[in-house]
């Protein structure tokens, strides 16, 4: 019988959300890399070009969703990796607090950046 390796308790809500965000991120991360390294080269990126992209509502919404789902997926992944290593009690609560606050701050700052680039 094949063994299943995962840091998540199968069937939990965070397990499901991790998979749902993964499905979205697989597509958008590939698009992001392709768009900003192959269609537009990273060494040619400038404010004016970023502004043109961000002023497209579809692109802006996609990038904000990308930020939110990537932050959740990353922070949730780190938290579950720590729980999987056996943290509990105060350490577990501290991890929840620090990662939760860091995630919220990252999303807020990311949206500020998106707004600055879009000219909002």
């Amino acid at each position, binding site marked *: 019988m094949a*063994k*299943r390796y*995962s840091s998540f308790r199968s069937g939990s809500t965070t397990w499901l959300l991790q998979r749902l965000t993964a499905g979205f991120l*697989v597509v958008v991360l590939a698009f992001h890399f392709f768009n900003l390294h192959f269609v537009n080269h*990273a060494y040619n990126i400038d404010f004016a070009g970023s502004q043109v992209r961000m002023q497209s509502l579809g692109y802006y919404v996609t990038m904000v969703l990308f*930020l939110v789902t990537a932050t959740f997926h990353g922070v949730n992944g780190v938290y579950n990796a720590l729980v*999987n290593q056996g943290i509990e009690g105060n350490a577990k609560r501290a991890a929840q607090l620090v990662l939760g606050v860091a995630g919220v701050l990252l999303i807020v700052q*990311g949206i*500020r950046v998106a707004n600055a680039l879009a000219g909002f």
Partner: protein
Amino acid sequence: MSESYDRGLVADFGRWTEFSAGMWAWVFHKFTGWVLVGYLFTHISVLSTSLQGAQVYNSTLSGLESLAIVRLLEVGLLAVAVFHILNGIRLLFVDLGVGLEAQDKSFYASLVLTGVIVVASVPTFLTGAF
């Protein structure tokens, strides 16, 4: 039907020579995940220069892109992202119970495909770097 792993086997790095393909996939996925989440915070920090105006944003990005080490790190980031994406797709299928018997082969396929994509992308990433 799958069964839970014995974490002791994975956690005890001294027994890495006994790791199966599935365990290596777990280790690589975790490592690439840590790199990507770390990069996400760094990425937003760099892009935050846009809050100080176009000139600061442009000079920061062009300054970073002029460094060969940054270009090389971008190739590394591509490798990490491509593996995480491909192995992530593999994990989604495994979670759905699809291809569980071939999960070792799909891990090797993820590694090979990552290598091919990264090598093919090197010229694009390193243009003008040296």
